C-alpha cells in the first residue's frame, strides 16, 4: 500500500530518509518536465528540479498542509522557474540541445515520443510565449492540472488562469497545428 503524501511527509520529518527518496521518485518527472517546458532546455531544467527538491527538504518542517503537497511543490518549482527567467533577461541564454534523453519504457502505449527535431520545434514555439502564459500553458497541457489547481499554485484568480491560457492557445494555434500536421505521428 502506497503511503499518501502527507504520511510520507510525516515520515520524513521524523528523520526517515527513505521516505524522502520515495517522495522524490514520486514527483521527479513531473517537476523535471514542468521545468523543461518553462525553461526550454534540459540542463537548466535538471538543475532547477534538483533545487526544487532541496528546497522542499529544507522547508518540509514549515509545510503546514494548508494546501496539498503537490500544489506546494509546483509552486516552488514555478517560482524558481520565474526567477530563472528573470535572471535570463539580463544574460540571454542560447538554448542548445546537447542533451540526449532516454524515454523510459512507458506502460501506456498511447503515449507518443517525438524525434528530437520535432520536439525542439514545438518547444521553440512554446518559448515564444510570455512567461505568465507559458507557465499556465505548461501546467495545463503538460501536467493536466485543473484550472483551480493552477490558480492555487500561482496564487491568482481562476479568471486570470483562463485568460492566460486562452491567449497562450491562441498564440500557438496556427504554428502548433502546422507542426503536428506536418510532422505526423510516429
Amino acid at each position, binding site marked *: 500500500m502506497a503511503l499518501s503524501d502527507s504520511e510520507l511527509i510525516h515520515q520524513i520529518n521524523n528523520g526517515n*530518509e527513505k521516505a*524522502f*527518496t520515495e517522495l*522524490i*521518485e514520486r514527483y*521527479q*518527472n*513531473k517537476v*523535471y*518536465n514542468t521545468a*523543461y517546458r518553462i525553461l526550454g532546455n*534540459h540542463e537548466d531544467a*535538471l538543475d532547477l*528540479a*534538483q533545487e526544487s*527538491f*532541496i528546497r522542499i*527538504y*529544507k522547508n518540509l518542517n514549515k509545510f503546514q498542509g494548508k494546501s496539498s503537497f503537490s500544489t506546494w511543490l509546483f509552486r516552488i518549482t514555478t517560482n524558481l522557474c520565474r526567477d530563472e527567467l528573470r535572471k535570463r*533577461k*539580463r544574460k540571454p541564454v542560447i538554448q542548445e540541445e546537447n542533451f540526449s*534523453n*532516454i*524515454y*523510459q519504457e*512507458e506502460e501506456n502505449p*498511447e*503515449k*507518443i*515520443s*517525438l524525434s528530437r527535431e520535432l520536439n525542439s520545434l514545438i518547444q521553440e514555439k512554446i518559448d515564444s510565449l510570455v512567461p505568465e502564459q507559458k507557465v499556465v500553458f505548461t501546467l*495545463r*497541457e*503538460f501536467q*493536466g492540472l485543473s*484550472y483551480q489547481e493552477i490558480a492555487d499554485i500561482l496564487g491568482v484568480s481562476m479568471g486570470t488562469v*483562463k*485568460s492566460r*491560457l*486562452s491567449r497562450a*492557445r*491562441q498564440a*500557438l*494555434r*496556427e504554428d*502548433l*497545428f502546422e507542426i*503536428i*500536421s506536418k510532422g505526423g*505521428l510516429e
Partner: protein
Amino acid sequence: MTHDKIKELLPLYIDKGLSPEEEDLVQEHLNNCPECQKELKEYQENHLFLSRLKEFTVPEGFKESILKKVGEGMKEKEHKSLWDKIKGFFVLPVRVPAGVLGLAAVILLVFITTLSGLFSNTNNLNNYNLLREKSLTDQAQYFSYSTPEASYNTLDSSLGRASLLSMEKGESLNTTVEQKLIKRANLVIEKSNIDEVDQLLLNLVERQQGYISNSRNWLNSNKQKHFWFEIRVPVANFNLLVEELSSKEYGQVISRSITTQDVTEEYMDLETRVKNLLAQEERYRSLLDIANEVEEILKIENELNRIRTEVEILQGRKNYLDNQISFSTITVEFRQPEPISSGSPGIVRAIRNAISQMIEQFYKIIVFIGTIIPYLLLILILYLFYRGRRQKKE
C-alpha cells in the same frame, strides 16, 4: 457576441473552461461560422496531441545527487562555526549598492563623533559640579569680599569678635563728637534642620528686645528650603545678637558681613540746618508781629511755609536716621545644605550620574534620529532610483 469575443472563448471551449451560458453562446455561433469551426478543430487537435506526449524522464543519479546535496547541507549546518553564525547574523538580506553603504558609513561616523563630543562636554560639566561642592568655603569668602560696604569679617569667629571689639573701641575713642553709626549685618547660614529655625530665631530676637521686620521662604531649584529674615534689634544688643547667630546652634555660617555706616556728618549737618531753620522761623514770627501791611504779612507767611516744609523734610530724615541708628538691622538667610549621599558617595553618585547621562544620551539619540530622517529618505530614494536604472539597463 462579437466574433472577436468568441475567438477568445473558443480555446477554453475544448476543455470545459466556460460557463454554461458562454458555452451556449459559442455553440450558437459555431453553427453559423465555418471559420470558427476550423479554429476549434485546430485547438482540439493541438490539445490532444500535447496531452499524449510522453514525458521526459530524469537521468540516472538524479535522486542520488539530491540526497548528496541535502546531506552536505546538513553537515554544513553542524560544522557551522561560531564565527559563521556571527557573520550570518550580520549579513543583510538586502543587496545594497556600494555607494549607498559608503554614505551610510559616513553618516554613522558623524553621528559617533558628535555623540562623543557631547559626552565629553557633559563630563566637563560633572567636573565643574564636583569642584563647586569642594569650594563652598572659598565661595563664601568670595562673596564676603564682594560686598561694597565698609568693613567686613572673615568666617573665623574668633577674628570676628576681635574686630567687633575694635569697633566698640572706636566708639569710645571719639567721645568729643557723639558718633552716629548705623550698624548692619548680613549672614548666610547653612542648617540641616531648617524648620526649627523659625522658633529659635523668634526666641532669640525677643530675648534681645528686637523684632522681625520682614521674612521670606522659598525653595531653590534643587528643592532646598531657604528662610530669609530681616531683624531689627536695639544697637546695644546688636553685637550680642550677631554673636549668637554665629554660634553652632544656628548652623554653619557660610558668610557674614558686618557693616557700620557712619552718618555722623550727615546727622550733624541735619541738626545744624534744622536749628538754623528754626531760628529763622523765630525771626520771621517776630517780624510777623511787627508787620502791618497785608503785602508784608503775605510774604512773611510764604517764607514761614517754606521754612516749615523744609524743616519737616529734614526732621523726617533725622528721625529715620535715629531709627536706623538706634535699631540695627540684621538680615540672615538660612538654607539647607547640599544633599550628601550616604554610604559610599563616590560610587553611588557615579552610578546616578551614569544613569542620568545614559537617559540624556537616549534623548539625544532620538533627536538625532529625527534630524537624520530626511537624509535616510534621500538615501532610500537614491537607492530605489539606482536600482530602477539598473533594471532598465538589463
